[in-house]
């Protein structure tokens, strides 16, 4: 390469047991590198059984010290596994860690090829590429940024509440932002929880109260995050506090306004459309905070200009018709997204008749129906509000495990269907049928619950329901809902008439999950759930430092798993807070002002607004704090004025040449 450089490069080839040595001639490779790459500055090339072992690392450290190596190439596994290991080893020996390159000859060579000669040849090219590149590496220092100890948690369901309490109890401040008027999420709507059948509200509400009164938690309900900027350690967030039309300072939560309000509205959110609320309302009795919210769309005063009954009767004068939306700016160091899920819209499966046949219910409707605090005071009745069903069919996998809708399993529906079966049986004595594809009861005490429901006499039919209809073919089907299903265990078609059908609708990502992901700089999987950093080893972190996910926002899960993830995410945040500062990869772009012509081509390319044009000097400049290091501007600069550390033009060009080193022969050779 360039003659001026006199680097001393050490090449270390790992056997990885037989993982690499089985397919690549590692001894030959090391010898080849030592001989044929001498012109690039290779002074030593060794092979060793496990380079990542402490003995292997010591080998490198010793060579750095004794042979005065200035660059190191380790031909082993993917840099995503052991780059840090070898960088640390170099650092221990006094060499800048960024002067180490990994050549991936395991994931990219030995594991994907079979012919030893071919694989060895490719490994040579990969090593030559890494050697050529490492010569162009420059020493870099990790960037340390301070961590703001405050945390933002978006979503006040059980996962978000758990996260907030963990962090607040550790002594750090939390902003808990919730879109609805009260925290609690879906769990607040449920009646019983499987498999223990404890009352959902009884176990949730103490947590809600704790979150609502905790001195370290600032609760922001009826609020939404509208803007996010910054990076790990110092995010700047703008939260829109929607007008409640109630002065929170004065309101005591007495609910007289709700009582006096003359306007009744169908409650589509909390009561799932089965009950009513007023135009000014506290969504449910145990709501936290206790302040009511005025529904401007339905309030008589806002529509007709008269009424103000709530204002008249409010004993503390807390009603404020002139309240405006407020925008609050927050500075936080870490963010946890626990935004939950939307229920699959059962109307989409038109052959099940939801929305058309009155006595077809969704799972959420049934939760409200069987809830003692619900619209029927816990009486399981048909849509007419009085008839108790004598037979009930529960259909599993509605919208889940279905190529027409969602491919994935929604995880909770089997246990939920069993819970419903138990509740119907217990409260009404009705005959219960469960229609399932596969029964999935894989957690602690779940299968035992299945056995219990089996013993209670619930009937199970294995098969995907084709249709729910009210068109009777015989006398005994008249006035009933008929479930048409292929019983795949008996191998025959069945028509089962029932009074009530409950659809176990699946979970799906929030309708705005993509937009929210984009706002926070994280991605969604093909199904639309937020993507975790590693599906097994890093399930609550994301690819974006400082942003964590918990609960159903990451994928369908039950309450125990949501709570566990909430706690896990807060442990990760506490880890960051306690370190006080975080080291960032020093991969950044910068502008050479002398070369910059001020063309501003780069200005519009940066999605992080890191590039600004300095009017006085007529040049562009990059804010290193905002730069994420993607390198798009580096590639775009027509003047070559922008350079990027870690992935410079020189490094990449050298690597290209190195990779093609074996081809660089006279064509007719």
């Amino acid at each position, binding site marked *: 390469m360039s003659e001026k450089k006199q680097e001393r490069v050490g090449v270390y080839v790992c056997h990885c047991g037989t993982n690499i040595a089985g397919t690549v001639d590692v001894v030959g490779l090391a010898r080849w590198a030592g001989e044929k790459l001498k012109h690039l500055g290779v002074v030593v090339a060794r092979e060793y059984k496990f380079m990542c072992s402490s003995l292997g690392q010591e080998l490198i450290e010793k060579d750095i010290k004794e042979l005065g190596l200035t660059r190191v190439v380790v031909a082993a596994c993917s840099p995503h596994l052991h780059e840090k290991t070898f960088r640390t080893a170099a650092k221990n020996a006094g060499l800048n860690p960024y002067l180490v390159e990994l050549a991936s000859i395991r*994931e990219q*060579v030995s*594991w994907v090829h079979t012919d030893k000669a071919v694989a060895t040849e490719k490994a040579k090219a990969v090593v030559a590429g890494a050697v050529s590149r490492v010569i162009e590496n420059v020493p870099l220092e990790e960037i340390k940024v301070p961590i703001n100890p405050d945390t933002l948690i978006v979503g006040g369901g059980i996962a978000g509440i758990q996260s907030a309490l963990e962090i607040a109890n550790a002594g750090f401040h939390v902003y808990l932002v919730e879109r609805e008027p009260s925290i609690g999420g879906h769990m607040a709507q449920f009646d019983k929880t499987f498999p223990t059948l404890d009352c959902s509200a009884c176990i949730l509400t103490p947590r809600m109260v704790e979150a609502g009164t905790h001195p370290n938690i600032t609760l922001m309900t009826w609020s939404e995050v509208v803007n996010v900027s910054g990076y790990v350690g110092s995010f700047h967030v703008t939260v829109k506090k929607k007008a409640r039309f109630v002065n929170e300072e004065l309101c005591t939560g007495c609910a007289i306004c709700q009582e006096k309000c003359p306007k009744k509205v169908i409650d589509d959110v909390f009561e799932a459309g089965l009950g009513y609320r007023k135009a000014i309302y506290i969504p449910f009795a145990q709501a936290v905070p206790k302040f009511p919210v005025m529904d401007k769309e339905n309030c008589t005063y806002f529509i007709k200009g008269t009424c103000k009954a709530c204002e008249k009767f409010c004993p503390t004068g807390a009603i404020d018709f002139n309240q405006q939306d407020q925008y609050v700016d927050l500075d936080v160091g870490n963010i946890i997204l626990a935004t939950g899920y939307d229920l699959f819209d059962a109307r989409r499966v038109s052959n099940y008749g939801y929305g058309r046949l009155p006595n077809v219910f969704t799972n959420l409707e049934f939760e409200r129906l069987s809830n003692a605090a619900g619209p029927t005071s816990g009486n399981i009745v048909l849509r007419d509000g009085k008839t108790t069903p004598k037979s009930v069919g529960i259909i599993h996998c509605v919208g889940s495990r279905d190529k027409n809708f969602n491919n994935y399993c929604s995880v909770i529906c089997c246990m939920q269907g069993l819970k419903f079966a138990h509740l119907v049986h217990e409260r009404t004595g009705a005959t219960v049928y469960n229609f399932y594809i596969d029964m999935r009861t894989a957690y602690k005490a779940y299968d035992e619950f299945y056995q219990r429901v089996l013993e209670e006499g619930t009937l199970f039919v294995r098969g995907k329901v084709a249709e729910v209809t009210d068109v009777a073919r015989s006398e005994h089907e008249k006035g009933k809902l008929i479930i048409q299903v292929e019983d795949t265990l008996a191998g025959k078609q069945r028509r089962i008439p029932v009074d009530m059908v409950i659809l176990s609708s699946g979970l799906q990502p929030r309708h705005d999950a993509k937009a929210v992901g984009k706002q926070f700089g994280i991605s969604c999987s093909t199904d639309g759930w937020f993507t975790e950093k590693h599906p097994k080893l890093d399930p609550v972190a994301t690819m974006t430092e400082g942003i964590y996910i918990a609960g159903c926002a990451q994928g369908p899960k039950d309450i125990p798993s949501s709570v566990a993830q909430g706690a896990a995410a807060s442990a990760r945040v506490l880890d960051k807070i306690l370190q006080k500062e975080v080291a960032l990869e020093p*991969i950044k772009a910068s502008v050479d002002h002398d070369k910059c012509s001020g063309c501003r081509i780069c200005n519009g390319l940066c999605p992080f607004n890191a590039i600004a044009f300095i009017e006085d000097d007529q040049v562009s400049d990059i804010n290193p704090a905002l730069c994420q290091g993607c*390198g*798009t501007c580096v590639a775009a600069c027509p003047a070559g004025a922008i350079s990027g550390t870690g992935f410079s033009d020189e490094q990449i060009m050298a690597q290209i040449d190195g990779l*093609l080193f074996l081809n660089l022969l006279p064509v007719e050779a």
Partner: protein
Amino acid sequence: MTENFEPTIIGFTCNWCSYRAADLAGTARMKYAPNVRLIRLMCSGRLDPTFVLRALASGADGVMITGCHPGECHYIEQNYKALRRYLLLKRVLKGMGIEPERVKLVWASAAEGAKFASETTAFVEEIRKLGPLNWGKPSDQLPIISEPVQHEEVPA
């Protein structure tokens, strides 16, 4: 010479998706054609079209550019910029008398090891059909080789 022609291909990968897809293909022991040599970038948006020309000039017969699926970029939208440059580059290549098919853009998420492997193998076959690029001889501006290395015939 084309009978025994083994194409050499340079592949540019994104640190967050396609490089991880290549890792996954490895972990899952999926087999694919050995003709592709990868370079890791932080993002497909880092791809300077000059890199592609340099690779072709230095002896590559084809270049594969890989990145995150549209809408899934780790840097929000930089893969769209890679797409723009790719389309423009193909026109430039045509103007230079090089088959535009020698450069291919593949979207592969971190979960798509199988896609990465199959697309790689397919691309190698496409380039094999096109034959060697033979774009001039390596000239003086290219790295000086201390001594000629005998290129071993790679069995097909």
